[in-house]
């Protein structure tokens, strides 16, 4: 049953050094505030899972909090490469991270299998692709009816998943709208889950088939308006494209990066996110 608490409490209670953690979001609703709180609490040795690690994973990697990355596309969307990730992989700064790389189809299926309580996912994939040669977690399974050989990926089962959502009601039921990504699956696949939300309301006023996580399927809920910045929250504020573009320059230099992280993350608080999205609020 979801407990309402501060983000600081939720991270302290649900994320430990050494955990496998997913901070999921597919361009939309990326849980930046949660990841920043994890950095402030000095969490280390994380195995991070995400289909599309972007700026916020670049930050976690650059700050040395990450031991291993399981992913399918690591880029600053529409801008370019992730410079902190590159520095780690190419130069071992601040340390080398281990890489487990899949395709989107494999990751999406693996989250789905995790949510479904299955040990693996079968899909038609990786045909002729070379990832299967460098990732021992890409195997195959044979259809017992047709004999077709399909690709197999192990289910993703994070210790904890962090997501950001539009709103929760007072019973802890969570509504996710718009580009819903793999967030529902990532929460259901995890042992524990922390959801930051834009607002807490009396009634979700949700469509009957909307993407809703019942409160009893969530561990902790934290009110953090703006907590997805610089990504966006459909119906609340738009994507801060300028920040994504700016990140490319910030991340290009180690010292610039460290100084920026001190000012904007280590010395900041979850409450600061509300200010960052004021100029991006939707007319609606």
């Amino acid at each position: 049953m979801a407990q309402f608490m501060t983000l600081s409490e939720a991270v302290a209670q649900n994320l430990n050094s050494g955990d496998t953690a997913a901070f999921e979001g597919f361009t939309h609703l990326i849980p930046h505030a949660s990841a920043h709180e994890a950095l402030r609490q000095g969490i280390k040795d994380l195995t991070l899972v995400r289909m599309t690690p972007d700026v916020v994973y670049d930050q976690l990697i650059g700050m040395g909090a990450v031991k291993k990355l399981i992913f399918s596309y690591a880029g600053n969307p529409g801008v370019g490469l992730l410079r902190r990730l590159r520095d780690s992989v190419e130069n071992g700064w601040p340390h080398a991270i281990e890489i487990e790389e899949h395709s989107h189809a494999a990751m999406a299926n693996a989250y789905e299998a995790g949510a479904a309580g299955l040990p693996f996912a079968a899909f038609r994939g990786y045909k002729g692709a070379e990832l299967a040669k460098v990732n021992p977690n890409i195997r195959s399974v044979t259809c017992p009816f047709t004999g077709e050989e399909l690709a197999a990926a192990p289910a993703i089962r994070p210790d904890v998943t962090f997501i950001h959502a539009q709103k929760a009601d007072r019973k802890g039921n969570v509504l996710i709208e718009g580009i819903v990504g793999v967030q529902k699956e990532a929460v259901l696949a995890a042992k524990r889950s922390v959801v930051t939300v834009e607002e807490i309301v009396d009634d979700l006023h949700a469509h009957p088939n909307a993407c809703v996580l019942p409160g009893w399927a969530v561990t902790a809920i934290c009110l953090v308006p703006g907590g997805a910045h610089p990504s966006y929250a459909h119906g609340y504020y738009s994507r801060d494209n300028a920040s994504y573009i700016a990140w490319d320059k910030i991340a290009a230099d180690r010292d610039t990066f460290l100084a920026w992280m001190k000012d904007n993350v280590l010395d900041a608080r979850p409450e600061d996110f509300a200010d960052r999205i004021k100029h991006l609020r939707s007319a609606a």
Partner: protein
Amino acid sequence: MSDTDFTSNEMMTIAASRALKNTDVCFVGIGAPSAACNIARLTHAPDVTLIYESGTIGTAPQVLPLSIGDGELCDTAVTTVSVPEMFRYWLQGGRVTVGFLGAAQIDRFGNINTTVIGDYDQPKTRLPGGGGAPEIASSCGEIFITLKQSKRAMVDKIDFYTSFGHGEGGDHRQRLGIATKGPTLMVTDLAVWKPDPVTREFTVVSMHPGVTREMVQAECGWTVRFADKLEETPAPTGIELSTLRDLNARTKAAHSGGKTGEAA
């Protein structure tokens, strides 16, 4: 605006856009493919179905998305599904007629690398990785590719097979049990390429106005094959050009909105 007053990038986008039919269901890669697909939709193919891997089906953005999951894509979509559903029901389900991809590195058989430059374990450059491409390449009815030519991008041998085109050529796809056509078209800033019916090597079938064989070869890392009947790509029409420029202007205005972030 004169018909000859266009850049090679504009020519590339417009030539690529012409390949999409009104009845196509197109899985859109980000970047150059996104512009081409939306120009198709805004010109000759108003009912083309555009799908982005973020789950948006039948989307019709007014500006080009910076990411594959901008809010605009959802706002204008017929429906938005979860990412697992996108990859299971819509891509793997065999419902997508065209996958439109870009490429960091490509070879003459349409095999694409967006994973690493250099060795996988000790890369010279760590690229973003495959994302949806490995299964887009095998599940879509056919694959269109668009990229700006350079010897760095068009190489004799790619460093990593992120997604499979025609492999070593010939019937390599069939030998791997892949039933779809694979790359059937490549549009660069200089030319239009199609695979040879037998060898599957990409062959220049049409050069853009003002482009010479030497110019094509100068920006390609393998020895270019030219079709016997080499055509000239029709120049952009006034409508195509104005549609593209209007879209780019709207896009630029939209993406520079918001102050430069204090916290990315």
